[in-house]
Every structure is written in C-alpha cells, then in structure tokens.
C-alpha cells in the first residue's frame, strides 16, 4: 500500500489556511501549535501513517508550501 515517508510544510510560506486539513480524506492533519514565519498557526501531519499519497493537500495548498514525500518502492519489505 502507498504511504508517505514525510509531509513537509514550509514554514517560510505557510499561511495557516488549513485547507490541507479540510481536503484530506484520511484525517492526516491537525491544527498545530507551531507558528510559521508569517506568524500563522501551521497544521501538523499528526497521523502520517494514514496518508495514501493522493496529493489533494498538495494540489489545494494556495501557497505551494506543502510537499508529500512518498515512501520509496520496496522499502517496506526490506525493513
């Protein structure tokens, strides 16, 4: 099954609109406590194991601040 290795949220550009949390069907994100460089509260990828790398959050991010890095193929079997 597809999974995400990590979800990067660029703290230089994030404006905390939380659209990533809204469009995510697997409830990966939750409101975080960390503030971005523009002083907005950023989302936090709390349940990373739920991520199926559909890319909706990336597509909907209005500030292009979000990147989903997928797990490399075959990595699950080795570990």
């Amino acid at each position, binding site marked *: 099954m597809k999974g995400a290795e990590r979800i990067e949220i660029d703290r230089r*550009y994030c404006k*905390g*609109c939380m*659209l990533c949390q*809204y469009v995510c069907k697997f409830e990966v994100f939750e409101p975080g406590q960390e503030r971005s460089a523009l002083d907005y509260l950023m989302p936090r990828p709390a349940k990373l194991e739920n991520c199926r790398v559909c890319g909706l959050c990336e*597509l909907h*991010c*209005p*500030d*292009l601040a979000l990147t989903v890095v997928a797990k490399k193929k075959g990595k699950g079997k080795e570990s």
Partner: protein
Amino acid sequence: MNPLGEKYLRKNFLPFIFCPGCGDGMIVQAFLEAVDELGIIDDLALAAGIGCSAWIPVYMHADVLKVLHGRAIPAAIGLKATRPSRKVVVFTGDGDGLAIGGLHLLHAARRNIEMGVVVVNNQIYAMTGGQVAPSTQVGARTQTTPYGNLEKPLDGCKIAVAAGATFVSRGSTAHPKALSRTFKKMLTHKGFSFVEVISQCPVQTGRYIHGSGAPQFNLQWLKDNCVPVDDPAKWAEVEAQGKIPLGDVLQVQKPEFMEEVEKMNQRVKEARAKGGDR
C-alpha cells in the same frame, strides 16, 4: 516547498501577496503543472493588469508584462504581433477583464489572435475592498450594494463565444486537476482561448456574500455550487438550478490572425515583385 514552486517560482518575491486561503495560489500551481507537462516555460510571455489575480504571473519565472488597469490584452496583442513565436497568456480578474477591459476582450476574441486569456472570477472587487463587480450574483450584499445587488451578472464565457473566441472553457479552483487540464488545452490551442476560473475569495466574497470568511467554507461553497458538465447543451439546465456549470463550451479551428498577417505580407511581396502595388 512544492517541487513545482521550487522549479518555476521567483524565490525572492515569495511569500505570495494573497490572503490565506485565496484561490489565486491554486491557479499558479495548476498553471505551472500544465506548463511543466508541456515544457514551454522559456516560450511563455505573460501579461497582467491590476488586481489580485494580476499578481499571478509576477511570481513565475517567465517574461512578464505588467501594464495599466484593464489594458493587459492590448499590450499582449502587441507582444504577440512583434514576437509571434512566444506563447502569450493574459491573467486578469473579473474587474480587470470584464469591466474596465471588457471591450478589449471582445476585439481580441474577434481577431482570433493566438493567445490565452485567464479571467479569475471571484464575483467581487476584492483588492479595493469588496465592491459590486459585473460578475456579482443578483441579491448579493457587498460594500456598495448593502441591500442586495439588482444587476444581472455578466457571463464571461457567453461573451467570449459571441465575440468569436475559438476555445472557451470554465474551471474552478475547487477542481484543480481539471483546471490544469484546461490550461493545457489553452496553451496548445491555435487561436484565441478564453478560460474563466471561478475562484474563492474568503476575505471579501466569503465574508460579505456567502456569510463566512473561513477558507474551508468557501472551498466547500465552490464544490457545492460548481457542477462539471460534459455537454455544453446542458449548461442552461444547470444554470436554471442556480449552479455554475464547468467544462469546455467551445473548441473550433478558425484562421489565426498572425498566420493571416504572414500570408498577407507574402501576397503583397509577390505582387510587388511582379510590378503591381498590392
């Protein structure tokens, strides 16, 4: 940052000037995706007037022409006429493209010059503080229509079809993948292409017209009210329900203006060589 942004955005201009949750950033991303698939960033020449949406091309690593309010289309026509090899795309808003620059749109469409015009429709004059726009729905309360708007909205797509554009389509920021495909069609079309993008503006449209300034609420409003339709014949049906139809309205091939100019030049040269004057 998103790999697309890493590749094609001017880092020293970032972060975007747009408000949190604005649809303009999504349009940047959808457009860059189309440009990336076609690999034409070096051929692009972008033009923009004044408004929130006119900031869209400024962030992209392409040649950009930023001109007077509403005059982006004439400037882009001049650009295309002198450099016919460039892919010219104009980004305007509903105020810039349908109100002050509305007549330029008609005449550019009539010429069928090869260029793309993207009209970002957020149904309000957002940058100036939320006044009524030509695309505002009937009954909407704005800063200048506190008791409800009485004027019927202009439909940019129908105007473009009537004026003679050869590719007319409508997308929305709530459907970013489809929007990217529409941009791809626009960039490969030979002739005048008009794309209207229904976008969310949480700060002005959301607060004054829809009743909430939350980006989530405004995105959901778009998802609920924009209906993708395959067949343009069904548009009237969707409009009768009070919803906004999305999809391609028209795609035809007609003689392109710059090609016709080139043919005319050739004809005159041949006639002169034979001793005539035209």
